[in-house]
């Protein structure tokens, strides 16, 4: 953004060219294709959509329709699904901030020689397949699982808690799965926070909590924001976790989209849902860009 197109070396042009080609092939074109699909008319055929253009008697006819979008924005089912997915993703992101910030802070404040080891521990779960870990949670949470076993054994509950197949289980497993996505960027920012600034604040008479509020948090805001978005974005479209540990009340966009596409064979409606989801995802990214611009040039 800083340098104009002029004065770029061949290598720079090539690098940018590759990036643009990648974005065009794997972002812009698929979005355009989904957008086109969303305005196709439905038709009982294979594929289950009619042609967008026909020529009848030498006349070009356009059969595009906004039906799918109208349904998305008027049918309570879809609005409900979007609201529930937004709420779920927001709660997941919030919980990741609440748990992940102290987590990352502790790693960043640990002796330098231990930090890499702690980071390794934080990403260690990635070495096992995500599906396996999700299934492991089913075992942990079910009525005869170790969690209920421990609670019953301690006499804290009389009946097994029906955690599995509940919204709570969905939230729990989502937070567990996405926590590293928050911790890593958060740690990267906190680790770079100059120790001098914290010492200067203490020297000026600020108590630890005041230093934390007025220096640590404002200066690591980019880490909080980018980490939260890294969690929020995939959480919004999450399909597998609600399928595995949620119940039928857990309306998630991913599930609705799947049903429209494969069960109802309403491809345009599925495409419209995908596009609206995409729009929802762009919102936090744009907000982040604005807040970054407001923070000005302090980022090194």
């Amino acid at each position, binding site marked *: 953004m800083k340098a104009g197109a002029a004065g770029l070396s061949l290598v720079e042009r090539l690098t940018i060219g590759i990036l643009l080609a990648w974005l065009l092939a794997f972002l812009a074109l698929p979005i355009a294709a989904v957008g086109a699909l969303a305005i196709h008319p439905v038709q009982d055929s294979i594929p289950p959509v009619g042609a967008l253009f026909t020529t009848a008697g030498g006349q070009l006819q356009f059969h595009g329709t906004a039906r799918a979008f109208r349904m998305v924005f008027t049918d309570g089912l879809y609005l409900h699904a979007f609201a529930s997915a937004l709420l779920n993703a927001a709660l997941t992101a919030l919980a990741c901030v609440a748990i992940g910030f102290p987590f990352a802070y502790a790693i960043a404040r640990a002796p330098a020689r231990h930090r890499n080891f702690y980071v390794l521990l934080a990403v260690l779960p990635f070495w096992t397949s995500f599906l396996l870990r999700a299934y492991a949670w089913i075992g942990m949470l079910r009525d005869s699982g170790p969690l209920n076993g421990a609670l019953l054994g301690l006499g804290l509950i009389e009946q097994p808690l029906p955690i599995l197949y509940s919204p709570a289980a969905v939230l729990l497993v989502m937070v567990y799965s996405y926590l590293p996505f928050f911790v890593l960027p958060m740690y990267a920012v906190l680790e770079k926070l100059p120790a001098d*600034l914290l*010492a*200067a604040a*203490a*020297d*000026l008479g600020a108590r630890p909590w005041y230093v934390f509020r007025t220096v640590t948090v404002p200066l690591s805001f980019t880490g909080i924001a980018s980490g939260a978005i890294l969690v929020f974005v995939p959480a919004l479209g999450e399909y597998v976790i609600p399928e595995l540990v949620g119940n039928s009340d857990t309306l998630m966009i991913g599930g609705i989209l799947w049903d429209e596409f494969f069960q109802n064979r309403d491809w345009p409606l599925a495409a419209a849902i995908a596009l609206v989801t995409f729009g929802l995802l762009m919102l936090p990214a744009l907000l982040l860009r604005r807040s970054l611009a407001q923070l*000005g*040039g*302090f980022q090194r």
Partner: protein
Amino acid sequence: MAAPAAALAQDPAAPILRIRGLAKSYGATRVLGGVDLDVPRGAIVALLGRSGSGKTTLLQLIAGLQEPDGGSLHIDGTDMQGVAAFDRPVNMMFQSYALFPHMSVADNIAYGLKARGMPRAGRQQLVDWALDLVRLEGLARRRPDQLSGGQRQRVALARCLVMKPAVLLLDEPLAALDRGLRADVQRELVGIQRRVGTTFIIVTHDQEEAMALSDFIAVMEQGNIVQFGAPREVYERPCSAFVAGFLGSINLFDGALTPAGPGRLQLRCDDGPLLHLGAAAPGNAGHQDARLRVGVRPERVAVERTATGMDNDFPGVLDSLSFVGNLSHAVVRLAGGRTLQATLMNLAGAAAGALRPGDTVHAGFAPEAIVVLPA
């Protein structure tokens, strides 16, 4: 330590900072080996030493950013043992200045006041006073990254002074500045200190900076203060060859004392020359045949084509002559083989201009130029 704290605090002649036996180790490495220091009220004191001499550690112990292993530290008569950094009447100006990048100049300066819960009106008044003091009135709304190096230094200074500390600690205050700026900033720093009267303790590794800025210099070596005194005193009467060499260049002579008539002593140097010590010699009637080390500053050595007429005059050959503008640095090789450094002023028509390496010359200095260096 016998005097009660209250009595110390009331006595304006009592040192504002009194340090006794302060020690600090990192594991097996001893960084400070029992430092004693009295800092007079309202003075500028420079802690001068190489990196690793313990000067920054001493500063951090005073600020309370680290805990000492032993010894005591009184500020304005109050024992600082167990007093956290945020409760000490001391502020530190960091080498990096450590300005908060997300706050304006005014908010940076107000930070400490706000942290201590001062109401807005009082804050504003003090911030205005500090901005005026460091001549940054027009820049109150700027962010640190919109300031020059010298301006940032002044914000850091104002941010500390607004707290009205008993002692202000400055860690290498000029190190982050361009060389060309330093002389101005030095003058300004001293000017501001004279106006507010706050005691300054400045850590520096630059002996010229230490001498130009301070009322007293504490020279540190390997975790100890080896000499404390006014700059001229430390320069002219260094207590050791290390201090002498650290505060500028010096020609060293090792030898044995020999008598040379009533009340006069000579030094028979191991590498040849016989030095007349004159009255400058130590009070040392009993030091006959004793080993002695003395030094002569290069600017006290004269170099001429003919005999210099000084008591100590040695023929030799001009080894090298480097011109650095106002001065020239000469090295003269004496007949016995040892060399002597001389710094010559390049005044109009000065001898140095006519000299060439290889010329036969005389190097000489007066007995008063000789400094006795305790081993």
